[in-house]
């Protein structure tokens, strides 16, 4: 899976980044920019979930907990301590990572996939209910507002960089920057010794253990990094939308959406979660007219992609190109 990067794939990635950077020159519509920003937030979330579930083979269903923790932590620190979002999103990501290590430690002792699924789901529910119940701090279901926005600054050559809802272009670039950092981290991890070990343990724990790999520590590391990235996405989300509710920031709908994205895009691939995030976000919005059907369609997409497209969109091309070795006339 992790062949050395060829010149071609480097150029491909560079071209994509260039397109992404130039996109705001052509897309000036604030609504489309908003969708692009949402897609990027979800791409970060989905890539991080894919890191543990697709690559490490640790099937968790509670990653929305870290999104909510990141979002609320960044917002609350900003509101109560008056710190800048530029700082708080990183603090929040660290808090999410700590929460990840906290819940990851017991999970990693469990080998049974259903137990992991149940514990992670329940953990996220605990986080959601707690945020919802601590009304004195979070204002509960009423929603937390008054979240500070990113402060603007001026750049030589570029001019004023401002973050507000009417000028979204700089939010777009910031989101893109965070996504690139995330993807860089994911790609780096997967190509490192840790990544190789992690894939080895997905493909056979015993085999990996016999190689003398300290599974627990690597798994925990992957889990922590993943929680960090989801928390970062959550923090950015908080300062971008400016208002948080427990259902929007830690609701089970979030993880369902992310799972749908990863499954549609391709579980266990680098590009799959990003493809899935963009496809589903834009698909969801084009169905805005059919708003009531959106979750229905996501549910259906999860079922259909699992049943008929287990490798996802990202690899559907290779599926057609590769000729299975064992197709022969009997």
């Amino acid at each position, binding site marked *: 899976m992790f062949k050395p990067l060829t010149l071609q794939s480097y150029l491909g990635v560079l071209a994509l980044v260039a397109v992404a950077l130039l996109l705001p020159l052509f897309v000036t519509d604030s609504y489309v920019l908003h969708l692009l920003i949402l897609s990027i937030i979800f791409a970060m979330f989905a890539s991080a979930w894919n890191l543990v579930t697709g690559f490490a083979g640790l099937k968790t269903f509670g990653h929305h907990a870290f999104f909510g923790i990141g979002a609320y932590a960044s917002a609350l620190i900003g509101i109560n301590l008056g710190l800048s979002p530029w700082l708080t999103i990183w603090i929040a990501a660290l808090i999410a990572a700590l929460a990840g290590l906290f819940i990851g430690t017991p999970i990693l002792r469990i080998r049974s996939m*259903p137990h992991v699924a*149940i514990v992670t789901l*329940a953990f996220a529910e605990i986080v959601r209910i707690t945020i919802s119940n601590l009304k004195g701090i979070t204002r509960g279901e009423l929603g937390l507002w008054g979240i500070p926005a990113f402060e603007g600054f001026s750049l030589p050559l570029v001019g004023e960089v401002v973050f507000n809802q009417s000028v979204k272009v700089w939010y777009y670039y910031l989101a893109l920057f965070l996504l690139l950092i995330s993807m860089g981290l994911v790609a780096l991890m997967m190509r490192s010794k840790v990544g190789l070990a992690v894939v080895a343990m997905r493909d056979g724990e015993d085999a990996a253990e016999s190689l003398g790999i300290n599974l627990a520590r690597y798994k925990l590391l992957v889990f922590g990094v993943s929680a960090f990235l989801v928390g970062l996405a959550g923090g950015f989300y908080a300062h971008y939308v400016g208002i948080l509710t427990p259902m929007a920031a830690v609701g089970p709908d979030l993880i369902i959406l992310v799972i749908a994205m990863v499954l549609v895009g391709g579980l266990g691939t680098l590009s799959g979660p990003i493809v899935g995030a963009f496809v589903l976000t834009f698909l969801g919005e084009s169905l805005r007219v059919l708003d009531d059907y959106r979750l229905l369609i996501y549910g259906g997409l999860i079922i259909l992609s699992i049943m008929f497209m287990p490798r996802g969109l990202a690899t559907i091309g290779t599926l057609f190109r590769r000729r299975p070795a064992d197709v022969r006339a009997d």
Partner: protein
Amino acid sequence: MSIFIEQIINGIIIGSMYALIGSGIALIYGTMRVLNLAHGEFYMLGGYIVFFLVVTYAVPAYLAIPIAILAIFLLGLLVQRLTIAYLLPREEWAFATIAATLGLSIFLQNLALLLFGEQFQSIPYYLSGVVEIAGLRLPQQRLLMLVVAIVTIAIMTFVLAKTRFGWALRATSQDKDAAAVVGIPAARIYTLTFGIAAALGCVAAAMLAPIYAVNPWMGLPVLFKGFVVVILGGLGSFPGAIVGGILLGIVEAVGVQVTSSEWRDVIAFGLMILVIWVRPWGLFGKPQ
């Protein structure tokens, strides 16, 4: 003091409903090793069928409930055949089935939202009287719940222990290949088990619907309760789920007395994570 005892008794009664939910999850996991995230949706749809029969069409409850149970049983068969049965032969079946049932859960939930709307529907109590036993006042409706739960569990216990199907189910869950060799068609047993589990959920829905309202989202909290139950009792164990259900009911009742009702679910999940941490095979099972 008597209020405290009443709360405990209520806990046991609600717990018997958790037991019905949990035993369905346990049966499915015990036979085909599938974690059914859509289990709550069969409960939800069961609630709606009872609601429409009893409220909209004025069918007497003693007829409406069996009809609903049968309908959900058949729906369970259909859903298993169309999705789970198709995924089980896959190499990646464990994750594929969890993900597919998750998708199914969202799909059914939102289908219900679309078809039945978002208003909360209520069903009148089947029995309205109150019974006084030793100074304790118990609504007849609650006693009915307990009776229905006991009868259902007794029937299931009999089916598992004494019938040809029950033997086949237990044999398949212990060793699929050995069961196939003696002529037990595992695929059919799986489908039937799934239908029965869904029907058990419907029994709980029929009894709980008059207390909680019927709505498209009612399945999810119940699914979580069911998970706690099967973790307490040992995932896949039918008797474990019964004991786990009652236990959860009591713990919640006591916990809510000590804290407040909005922390009920946190207590349940906390207990569950504690059990997984200390005894992952459940409170009553044996380590494998």
